């Protein structure tokens, strides 16, 4: 039996414990040069309730509050704690956090356990460092007591307290065996935290802890879960959100061997079978008549832009304000010259590689359940499962699995793909793995909204932009994805509007506003959220203004960035890297800059346009970014490569279309996900500066569309204003 001393500190509920016995590291963990993952998931015997535990054998258990979807947070947050703790990284074992917002919620995300928005390192930065420093302080205070020397004479090396004067050393494990823990955690002043020059782990690139499991098939996603007695589920949903089955003809489905049950659900029809192939076959054989009460019936994505455009251009209709500075309408009236333009972004789909799925095992009495899923929010998944069963969240045990991609799809308040398995397991009182086919994942997708952007800019007689107006007509996103946050956040649709603010630019009078379109279409955060469409519109517009007003696009940005030296630095860097001033015959060079929540990004790209087919080829792509401190620099580069490639698809090929409210695309190929042959040469420069980290998981995605649009104009004279830049749209723009 393990005994434990622990304390809990601070508003965020930080705490740590010292395990006195019975908690040895696995031999596998000892052999590794880096940290390892706990073999038992949350809820297992080695779970610690606090943020870290020290064992007398030197093992350091650190809790990871984030989910892992390839972005590296599972490594980065424990690494930050280990840095300030001065822990020996090879002795660290990472443990997934229990679903508890009060202890593990992201302070940068209103205290929710929610891995999204590139906000994990940013949000936990202060608490993780402070907590690590507190553990180190307690180790030092104990050594001071044991040696009877002043605290000020002590220093630390990895997992060791050192008294340089006498040459004495004590390992953290040795101290843990005899440590006294203070009743109150020591206060750590911000200036007592390490300076970047003192880092041993941050900025040095350790291997992501789960990486070895991703090259030999061992990595476990929820789709891989196997349980004794497990059945397979498939769900046929209505063609649009909110439609329900009126009549179900299921005799052909029931005739398929292995089909166990067919279940009417509020939103569709569930099939439960002995095998996945029986479940899929039975689902495909269902004949269902749906009611047509849902709002989205009739929605047509080919016709919608004209409707949205009319709303955006009708200046007598005021929108919901987002970014307000000075008096934009007043300044616009006094401007010497006004430019205007309109941009459109089509619906887009996440296309995470792992189609949605989950596993649930509901107790025979229906009063408890266990779930296995890949969610972006552990607490939302638990709450959704509890709500579906009408039981307290404490009766839901979560097994958090790796995510085969997230990109915003797995962070909806209702976690519908988790509820699917809970409802079907409840029906048969056996574990059920619900699998969405790729066709289900596309058809039942939740999408980045369709948006029409009407922009106006007023320039004074000196050519300075003095007024800026950006009106965004788009489907609502936040209200659908997360009604709780929407209501709690003043009903501001930040998932749609983020990025329309231009606070980094020196433009004194600005107004961005939303004209929400009530379409009933399922919408979602998607990598880059509002920054994607909004930065496309604002940066493409600035490129047009520069050309029309005979300003150099780079000089215009440098002028607008006169109060943002870090912005200027990335601009100058990318101009130098790309030899921007050197002409490329037959090709065009584009340029763009964005400030993504404090991360500064500038890009140049070289593209050519086939005037016969309208096809755009992107040859080279240069990008410089300053995310502040890069905890894992090579991972920041990897995330940036990833963000650019994601942005290429959104810019050139990817779109979702609707007819009568129903999604028309079916799978990976007709949706248009980029492949290796589509990828330009990438040239990246990370300008890490000693500033608070501001995020790195998606910062480049929004810059791709405007920089390509700029290059297409330079190459061909065509202004492409509608993403994706499909060949037929390029041909139309070529005239």
């Amino acid at each position: 039996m393990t005994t434990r001393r622990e304390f809990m500190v601070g508003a965020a509920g930080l705490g740590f414990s010292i395990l006195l016995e019975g908690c040895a590291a696995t031999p596998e963990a000892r052999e590794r040069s880096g940290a390892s993952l706990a073999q038992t998931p949350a809820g297992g015997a080695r779970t610690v309730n606090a943020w870290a535990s020290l064992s007398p054998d030197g093992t350091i258990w650190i809790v990871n509050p984030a989910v892992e979807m390839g972005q590296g947070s599972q490594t980065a947050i424990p690494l930050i704690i280990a840095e300030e703790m001065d822990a020996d990284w090879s002795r660290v074992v990472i443990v997934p956090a229990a679903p508890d917002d009060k202890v593990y919620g992201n302070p940068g995300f209103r205290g929710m356990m929610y891995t999204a928005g590139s906000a994990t390192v940013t949000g936990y930065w202060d608490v993780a460092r402070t907590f690590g420093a507190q553990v180190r302080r307690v180790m030092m205070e104990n050594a001071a007591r044991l040696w009877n020397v002043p605290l000020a004479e002590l220093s630390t090396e990895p997992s060791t307290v050192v008294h340089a004067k006498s040459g004495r050393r004590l390992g953290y494990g040795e101290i843990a065996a005899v440590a006294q823990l203070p009743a109150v955690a020591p206060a750590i002043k911000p200036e007592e935290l390490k300076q970047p020059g003192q880092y041993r782990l941050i900025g040095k690139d350790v291997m992501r802890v789960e990486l070895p499991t991703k090259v030999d098939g061992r990595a476990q996603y929820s789709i891989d879960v196997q349980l004794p007695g497990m059945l397979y589920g498939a769900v046929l949903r209505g063609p649009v959100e909110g439609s329900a089955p009126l009549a179900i003809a299921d005799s052909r489905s029931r005739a398929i061997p292995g089909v166990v049950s067919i279940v009417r659900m509020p939103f569709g029809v569930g099939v439960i079978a002995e095998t996945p192939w029986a479940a899929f076959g039975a689902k495909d054989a269902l004949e269902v008549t749906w009611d047509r009460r849902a709002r989205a019936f009739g929605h047509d994505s080919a016709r919608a832009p004209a409707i949205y455009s009319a709303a955006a251009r009708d200046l007598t209709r005021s929108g919901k304000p987002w970014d307000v500075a000075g008096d934009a309408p007043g300044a616009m009236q006094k401007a010497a010259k006004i430019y205007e333009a309109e941009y459109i972004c089509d619906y887009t789909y996440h296309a995470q590689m792992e189609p949605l799925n989950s596993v649930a095992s509901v107790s025979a009495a229906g009063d408890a359940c266990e779930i296995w899923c890949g969610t972006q929010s552990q607490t939302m998944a638990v709450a959704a499962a509890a709500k579906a069963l009408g039981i307290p969240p404490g009766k839901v045990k979560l097994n958090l699995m790796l995510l085969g991609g997230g990109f915003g799809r797995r962070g909806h308040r209702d976690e519908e793909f988790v509820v699917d398995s809970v409802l079907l397991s409840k029906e048969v009182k056996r574990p059920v793995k619900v699998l969405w086919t790729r066709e289900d994942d596309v058809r039942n997708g939740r999408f980045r909204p369709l948006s029409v952007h009407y922009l106006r800019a007023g320039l004074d007689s000196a050519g300075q932009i003095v007024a800026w107006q950006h009106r965004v007509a788009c489907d609502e996103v936040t209200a659908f994805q997360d009604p709780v946050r929407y209501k709690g956040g003043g009903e501001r649709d930040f998932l749609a509007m983020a990025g329309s603010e231009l606070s980094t630019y020196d433009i004194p009078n600005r107004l961005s506003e939303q004209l929400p379109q009530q379409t009933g279409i399922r919408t979602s955060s998607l990598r880059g959220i509002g920054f994607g469409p909004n930065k496309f519109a604002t940066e493409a517009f600035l490129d047009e203004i520069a050309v029309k007003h005979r300003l150099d696009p780079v000089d215009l940005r440098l002028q607008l960035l006169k109060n943002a030296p870090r912005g200027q630095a990335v601009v100058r860097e990318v101009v130098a890297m790309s030899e921007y001033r050197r002409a490329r015959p037959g090709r065009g060079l584009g340029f763009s800059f964005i400030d993504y929540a404090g991360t500064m990004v500038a890009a140049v790209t070289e593209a050519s346009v086939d005037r016969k087919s309208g096809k755009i080829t992107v040859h080279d792509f240069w990008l410089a970014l300053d995310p502040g401190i890069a905890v894992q620099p090579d991972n920041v580069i990897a995330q940036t490569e990833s963000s650019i490639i994601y942005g290429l698809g959104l810019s050139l090929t990817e779109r979702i279309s609707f007819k009568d409210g129903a999604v028309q695309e079916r799978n990976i190929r007709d949706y248009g996900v980029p492949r290796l042959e589509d990828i330009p040469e990438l040239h990246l420069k990370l300008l890490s500066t000693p500033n608070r980290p501001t995020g790195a998981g998606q910062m480049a995605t929004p810059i791709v569309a405007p920089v390509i649009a700029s290059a297409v104009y330079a190459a061909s004279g065509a202004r492409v204003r509608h993403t994706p830049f499909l060949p037929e749209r390029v041909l139309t723009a070529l005239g």
Partner: protein
Amino acid sequence: MAINFSVNGRPVTSAAPEGTPLLWVLREELKLTGTKYGCGAGQCGACMVHIEGGRTFSCLTPVSSVQGKSVTTIEGLSPGRLNALQRAWLAESVPQCGYCQSGQLMSAAALLAANPRPTRAEIKDHMSTNVCRCGTYPRIVRAIERAAREG
């Protein structure tokens, strides 16, 4: 009728209906979950395995068609120790979410088996069967080049 074949050198029997995709037999009947489901239509390559040494979309392969044949999955690519390709994958930190990577590795292994020193153009052409939504493509190219070099 039972279908007999070998997986990673081990004889196996499947009771699944003959039209069942090999992918689902591997994953849910034989519990070899390293091979992934991504599209079910031969469009993404997450399900790539080797049949008689050649790479094949297991999602498009009826289990009956492998009767008597030899199938290799990611679990059998280099059992017990990592091969040059897997080591290169780690050295270049290729995987992000990792979901497609079994298929990427099986495709890359088939490439190097047939062409130990592929050009960059040959790599791009061969590997464009496999989708990676995290966009690890530049690192996949570097890792294949490294494996070819360091073999």
